[in-house]
């Protein structure tokens, strides 16, 4: 009996985004869409153990959910016209839904879950719930917040969408770019929660990276002609390839250049490079694509010494034009120091010293200290490391920086 239940739940995880999307488009509301889809799951849990598994479980769930939707719409007197539309739709598309329609509905679901009227944490929770098929509990554990917090977040998110009358529609050409940007931002936010996290239960965090990767891969098939979608996947695959090498068994982070490359996942590297090629074939690389191109330079180097810093520097030059920011500039300075020498890198860093955006950014004095060390200006370097140590809130990093300062005394 437990086998059947496990099978039904597995089928639910596979099919639920499509079912939710199909019903949501029918009734014009994602909250209702999810409710009716859940009704279908309940029915499946009751009937399938008794009657056997249907030949096409996805279609069974979709038809059952849509029938629930019709019942609801019929009972609502103000929705009589809607009832006629919905009933017709069900008759016409009962057997073989058009794959294009299914794809469009899923895309609509993606865009609504990532709607800019919602806060980023709300978008992330809703996306993981509706498209990632995660339970509230799984989302809570992933983000290290209490389950009731996540449950509330999702409830409020759906209410906000209804109150804002956010249409369950694909964005028009004018807002498409910014709406897509919002989607990519959510997926990358989820990825970074898993990638940069060294706190919490050690091995549950890579799971978040994998959830984000799956969402990204689904999106790449829904929007195959968008360069930045492939760029984002390339970036995530290449970063994820380093997950095992990033953290020592004791939990200490390992810098990229110090990582054991035998522990880099070559399957993910191969996939990331292919995604990057797809992104490049679709037009000039955007912000994610360029970051992926930099990650690809590291992935292609068999050892740290073989890194093509000249190419990395060139890509940073482009990235700095596409997304000018002090943080990008700081990273560019590091690349320049590796390709043209520490003095050239220091010039760029010195120009950033008065940037108010970086005044609390401990990596600025940290990078400066590193470059000064290489130039033999040890007393100045020691001061920078001490400053950086005082600025960071991460205990492990503070210890690392204090050690570097002490080594220069």
């Amino acid at each position, binding site marked *: 009996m437990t086998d059947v239940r*496990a*099978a039904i739940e597995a089928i639910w995880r*596979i099919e639920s985004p499509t079912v939710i999307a199909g019903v949501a488009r029918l009734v014009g509301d994602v909250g209702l869409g999810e409710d009716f889809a859940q009704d279908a799951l309940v029915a499946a849990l009751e009937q399938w153990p008794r009657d056997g598994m249907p030949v096409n479980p996805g279609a069974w769930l979709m038809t059952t959910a849509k029938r629930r939707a019709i019942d609801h719409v019929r009972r609502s007197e103000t929705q009589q016209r809607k009832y006629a539309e919905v009933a017709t739709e069900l008759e016409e598309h009962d057997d073989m839904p058009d794959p294009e329609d299914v794809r469009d509905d899923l895309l609509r679901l993606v865009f609504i879950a990532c709607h800019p009227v919602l806060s980023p944490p709300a978008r992330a929770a809703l996306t993981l719930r509706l498209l990632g098929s995660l339970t509230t509990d799984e989302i809570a554990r992933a983000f290290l917040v209490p389950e009731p917090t996540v449950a509330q977040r999702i409830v409020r998110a759906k209410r906000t969408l209804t109150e804002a009358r956010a249409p369950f529609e694909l964005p028009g050409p004018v807002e498409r770019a910014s709406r897509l940007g919002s989607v990519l931002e959510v997926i990358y936010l989820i990825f970074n929660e898993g990638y940069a996290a060294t706190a919490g239960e050690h091995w549950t965090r890579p799971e978040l990276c994998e*959830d984000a990767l799956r*969402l990204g*891969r689904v999106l790449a*098939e829904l929007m195959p002609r968008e360069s930045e979608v492939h760029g984002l996947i390339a970036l995530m695959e290449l970063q994820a390839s380093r997950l095992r090498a990033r953290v020592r068994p004791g939990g200490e982070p390992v810098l990229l250049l110090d990582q054991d490359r*035998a522990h880099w996942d070559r*399957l993910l590297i191969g996939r990331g490079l292919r995604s990057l090629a797809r992104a490049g074939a679709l037009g000039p690389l955007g912000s994610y694509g360029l970051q992926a191109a930099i990650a690809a330079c590291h992935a292609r180097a068999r050892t740290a010494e073989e890194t093509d810093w000249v190419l990395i520097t060139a890509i940073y030059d482009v990235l700095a034009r596409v997304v000018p920011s002090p943080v990008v500039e700081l990273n560019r300075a590091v690349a320049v120091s590796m390709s043209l020498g520490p003095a050239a890198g220091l010039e760029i860093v010195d120009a950033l010293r008065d940037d108010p955006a970086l005044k609390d950014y401990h990596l600025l004095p940290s990078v400066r200290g590193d470059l000064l060390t290489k130039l033999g200006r040890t007393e100045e370097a020691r001061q920078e490391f001490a400053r950086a140590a005082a600025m960071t809130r991460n205990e492990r990093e503070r210890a690392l920086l204090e050690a570097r300062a002490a080594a220069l005394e």
Partner: protein
Amino acid sequence: MPRFVALVKASAESEEGVLPSTENLEEMTRYNEELVKAGVMLAGEGLQPSSDGVRIAYGGPSGRTVTDGPFAETKELVAGFWIIQARDLAEAVEWLKRAPFQDGEVEIRQVFEDEDFGEALTPELREAEQRLREQAAKNR
């Protein structure tokens, strides 16, 4: 999320190098597309018949013995594989149930991750392994 390897067992046809029909190829293409669209597919390949392959036996007086195919026990041979990423074995099973096969067999095995080694790979052992790798890298 664990990874699973699905091993497609060989058949008399696959061993003879009989190519699938156009219809079968189309069905397989569609199935692979479904795996990709769901973000589940990591890799998938078909393997050439064992008549073009070899086996290496380890041990014995010579240390290594290489034998040319073909090999008997067709049902134990592998004709192809997928590597997929799924939440659990139940999900992997549901996906492979959808493969367009009329007969034959697929075996699904979960891929070991570091944390699966449990007692065998304590933090101390992992630390030691890490140090060894770093040493080996320096010696290369």
